[in-house]
């Protein structure tokens, strides 16, 4: 049977394409701001959201979206008020999220296979309505990045200089945090809450070794993200693997290959 004959694979590829483009685009700015691990922290808050969704009988994805976005903005708020304690702000959100998730899951009696699909990703459980939500949020996320691109680059290059010249640093930082929250929420059905941060970071690491400008590096990262998702889903289909693991292992392979190949590429240039 051809892989695209199955309806669930068509949904998975369509959803995965959005995720593969959005996660590295947002991750690009997180990596430049040395906030690579924020995706992990937000993922744990998203877990609490999923659990709350089960407990209160509302959409787990919608609840995760709210929890992840609030957590991301919360981390940024704590970080901006106590600049030296960014890792502590992250730890607070990280552990509160996972603890709240465990408590809510046990209260809802939802420790089952469906929950694991959120943790590790699944190609079987994504529906067309999931895809519709992912597509809308992904399009909004990419549009916001395009709109704020110059400002985000200016802050990434030189935050102090951007502040002196009057750019709205607080707004840009909160917008980036909110984008990270949205990315985690839309990506968790395919990649899984535990691995989404990797898809935000690894393609960026790979692209950073071979790109020749900020723009080309970001586009390359999005290409690597897309390729990792497409190849990972294909592997997942044929080998019956959890898609999140397959996708992230491929993205990691790209990062390692770029590290090894970059010196040769630079010599050839």
């Amino acid at each position, binding site marked *: 049977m051809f892989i695209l004959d199955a309806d669930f694979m068509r949904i998975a590829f369509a959803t995965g394409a959005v995720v593969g483009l959005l996660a590295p685009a947002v991750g*690009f700015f997180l*990596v430049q701001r040395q906030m690579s691990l924020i995706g992990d922290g937000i993922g744990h808050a998203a877990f609490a959201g999923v659990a709350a969704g089960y407990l209160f009988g509302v959409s787990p994805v919608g609840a995760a979206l709210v929890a992840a976005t609030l957590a991301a903005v919360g981390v940024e708020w704590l970080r901006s008020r106590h600049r030296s304690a960014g890792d502590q702000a992250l730890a607070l959100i990280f552990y509160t999220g996972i603890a709240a998730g465990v408590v809510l899951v046990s209260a809802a009696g939802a420790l089952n296979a469906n929950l694991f699909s959120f943790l590790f990703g699944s190609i079987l459980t994504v529906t067309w309505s999931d895809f519709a939500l992912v597509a809308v949020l992904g399009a909004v996320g990419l549009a916001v990045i395009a709109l704020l691109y110059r400002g985000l680059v*200016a802050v990434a*290059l*030189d935050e102090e200089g951007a502040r*002196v010249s009057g750019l709205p640093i607080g707004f840009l930082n909160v917008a980036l945090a909110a984008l990270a929250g949205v990315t985690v929420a839309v990506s968790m059905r395919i990649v899984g809450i535990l691995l989404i941060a990797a898809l935000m970071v690894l393609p960026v690491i790979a692209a950073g070794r071979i790109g020749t400008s900020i723009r080309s590096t*970001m586009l390359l990262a999005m290409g690597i993200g897309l390729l990792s998702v497409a190849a990972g889903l294909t592997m997942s289909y044929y080998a019956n693997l959890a898609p999140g693991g397959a996708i992230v292992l491929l993205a990691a392979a790209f990062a390692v290959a770029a590290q090894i190949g970059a010196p040769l590429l630079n010599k050839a240039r």
Partner: protein
Amino acid sequence: MPLAVELNGVSFAYPGGPDVLSGVDLEIRRGEFVTIAGPNGGGKTTLLRVALGLEEPVNGEARLFGELADRVRDRYRIGYLAQRTRLGIDAPATVSEVVTAGRVARRGLLKPFGRPDRDAIADAISRVGLVEHAATPIQRLSGGQQQRAFIAKALAGEPELLVLDEPTAGVDVDAQEAFGAFLGELHEALGVTILYVSHEFGAVERFVKRVILVRGGIVFDGPPAELPAHWHDPSHVHP
């Protein structure tokens, strides 16, 4: 015409700490090329941060272009070169991308760039002599060229006040001299107010008409020629 920078009776201390600055009065007119020097830890960077409205003085007030420094509108009128001479970014950034970042505040965050913006960016790159390197990742340039790219970034917003905080830190003496001469030419060509903050100012001594030495307050303010000989090395400044 309002002064570019004005400090009136400014004192500053970090919470729970001793005074870093006390009783500072300072006026910098538009078009001046001034160096603010002093030993490390003497308070010159703090003075700069207060003057730019990044820190609030405990006493006194700071004004920029006649407005309170922390409430000044149109802050894009300030071009700023940060203390560090490297990018805060891992990705390869071309000279053009770096310089473009310096234009965003003047244009406005959400407005698309127009012809005047592209011209200003091209002009800034041309003024620092990096036209041929516009598409080159800045990490591949020499230290001196990188510094010029950052100057072009500060110039892209067509600033009225150019602030350089320790711009020659980690740069060899020859490059410092070349940089000083370049700033002298820039000042003459643009007439922009330049605040050059450094623990030593040998590179620009020939070009500035005014040296301000800072050590907890202003301990000297005048032309370099009137500077007592033992103060030419500001690490030896004594109040």
